[in-house]
């Protein structure tokens, strides 16, 4: 069992010693039961830190923000930031290290094990609660979640309300840490790509129909991209809402910059955006599931990325986001890599 007090004590130690600038952790939101990211700068604030089944956010996303912030400053504070990570989140740090986006000394990794369960899917929980309003949620015993509602407590099996990605999780214990809380439990996942296979087994017409229907719903809010730690490009090829312009950028360069996508949220543009993003995440997506959770219209986005994670494994025997010493998938090759797609 991961105890809040232990995490808080570690945070306090780090802040008091000045070892880290601030700590990115989880706190309880205004509703009193769902977690939100919090930035703890002072030791006296560590009591805000919590750990629970609603800590689904990938806090490594804010490590990316910290790098951007430092880039803007003249004399940045070069101390690391502390960041609380689950297993999936820690794999994001591995990717950022592989890609040399950050240095190991930029982060102090406070790992938390998901032990035998994981985080919840709010929509699944709402369906189970059938109108009852959740007030608090904790890890129960025996792989249950204990939920306090406005009309009594409910014990629900974790498997029924856990996020889909937790059901297929291959890294429930963080793979890289400076300190680890919780037990290094052993878990096997019989079908790590089960959800992808369900879609793969559809005929190509049905698959195309499925994705057209889903991506029709997209309103191009870019929450999926914005919440992803690996989508850190200052200027996104798929659709730019940030255009890196300096006083030296000539009018010609600006005039000739190709606009790959129209802003209109029509199916052609939506498909292009999501496909390009999925391909740019090939070998980089670590299935934290945030894209899907953030989507306000519930498009099963992690399927797209998961498919490419499966390809990485099948074609190249590559496990995404485990070994920071290994090169990034698309920046290396081996002589024995399959070549049957080369004709």
């Amino acid at each position: 069992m991961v105890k809040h007090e232990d995490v808080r004590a570690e945070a306090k130690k780090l802040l008091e010693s000045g070892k880290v600038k601030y700590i990115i952790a989880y706190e309880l939101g205004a509703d009193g039961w769902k977690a939100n990211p919090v930035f703890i700068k002072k030791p006296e604030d560590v009591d805000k830190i919590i750990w629970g089944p609603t800590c689904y956010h990938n806090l490594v996303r804010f490590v990316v923000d910290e790098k951007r912030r430092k880039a803007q400053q003249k004399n940045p504070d070069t101390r690391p930031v502390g960041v609380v990570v689950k297993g999936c989140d820690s794999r994001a740090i591995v990717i950022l290290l592989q890609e040399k986006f950050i240095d190991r000394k930029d982060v102090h990794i406070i790992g938390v094990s998901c032990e035998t369960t994981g985080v919840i899917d709010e929509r699944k929980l709402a369906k189970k609660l059938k109108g009852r309003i959740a007030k608090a949620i904790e890890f129960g015993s025996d792989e249950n979640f204990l939920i306090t509602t406005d009309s009594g407590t409910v014990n629900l099996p974790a498997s029924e309300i856990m996020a889909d990605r937790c059901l297929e999780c291959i890294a429930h214990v963080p793979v890289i840490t400076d300190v680890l809380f919780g037990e290094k439990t052993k878990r096997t996942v019989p079908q790590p790509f089960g959800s992808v296979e369900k879609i793969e087994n559809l005929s190509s017409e049905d698959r195309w129909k499925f994705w057209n229907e889903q991506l029709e719903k997209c309103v191009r809010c870019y929450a999926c991209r914005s919440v992803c730690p690996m989508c850190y490009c200052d200027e996104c090829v798929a659709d730019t809402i940030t255009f890196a312009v300096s006083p030296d950028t000539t009018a010609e360069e600006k005039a000739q910059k190709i606009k790959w996508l129209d802003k209109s949220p029509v199916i052609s543009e939506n498909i292009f955006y999501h496909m390009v993003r999925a391909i740019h995440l090939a070998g980089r997506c670590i299935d934290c599931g945030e894209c899907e959770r953030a989507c306000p219209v519930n498009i099963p986005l992690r399927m797209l990325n998961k498919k490419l994670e499966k390809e990485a494994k099948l074609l190249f025997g590559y496990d995404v986001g485990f070994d920071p010493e290994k090169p990034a998938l698309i920046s290396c090759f081996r002589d024995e890599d399959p070549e049957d797609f080369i004709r």
Partner: protein
Amino acid sequence: MDKILAKKDFPRWLEALGAYDVYAPQLIDDVWNYELAADPKAVSLDYPQTAIPAKKIVFPQREFFFEFREADTDGYELKELLPEGKPAVIFGVRPCEGKAVTLTDLVFGGEIRDDYYWKRRNAAVLVGLACASPPSTNCFCLSVNGSPHSKEGLDVLMTDLGDQYFVETLTDKGKKLVSEGGAIFHEAKPADKKAAEKIHADSEKKLARELKNIKDVPAKLRGMFASPFWDDESMSCIRCGICTYLCPTCHCFDINDEVESQTPLAGRRVRTWDTCQFPDFTMHSSGHNPRPDKAARLRQRINHKFQYFVEVWQNYQCTGCGRCITLCPVGIDIIKVVEKVRDHVS
């Protein structure tokens, strides 16, 4: 004129509305949204809150301004593309969304009228549904001059009395819509009105959240423009567009030319939703950006809603629907932010 409509007769009303595009809340992949009601019998008004508010009917996310085509005479041919087709009727509109439409009316009206908005708006019939209980755990309409049974912006207000609806017609458009239903409506009895009024009064006590004492917030905000408060509050913002795209009162838009053919040059000028939260929203061609960071952009959103709009229109540009709170991926809570502004000591 108050009427009663038995719930079992509700589909017959929809079936009588062939002259309209009928929108109603529908559950698709676990998300409620206003969509065309293909099957009147499948429509239920027993729903919480849509993800995308009713504004999308009068102010769609994408609409065409005009077509342009290179021509031999006069260089170009321009063809205005004003909205056509059947008027829309939207069922299940929550009072906060009705009130929000009165606020977007202020923006798109005035001395210079936006013909595209008004063509849709004048034709659309908004059928409200009183909130017997809050559709969301983050509702706070009462705190921003709204109410769970407000009639602002609506043409009809329906109140669920159990196995029937109490139907109040509020405008001529509403009257016409009800008359399309004909004999399925019955005169409401005084007891029905009393029952509806009780539901309305009770509903005001059920809101889980409030934003109290915000009278001085506009003045407070004026003094906080340069405050580091915004840096702290915006630290977890991931700069997506959810809070603004899904806000019933937000109206920012972009205008772009979409080229469909190069020779001859032809295409359409298109309007799409935009958001002050995207980094490039205010960026000049030169690269200069008056709002280069998240702090400035969060400040703009809060200031626009609780200071600037108040100064120009004497209304908060927020109707308390709570969508931005519920759907923000990192839980940035507008109630909390405004409370902190209210209590801020510099």
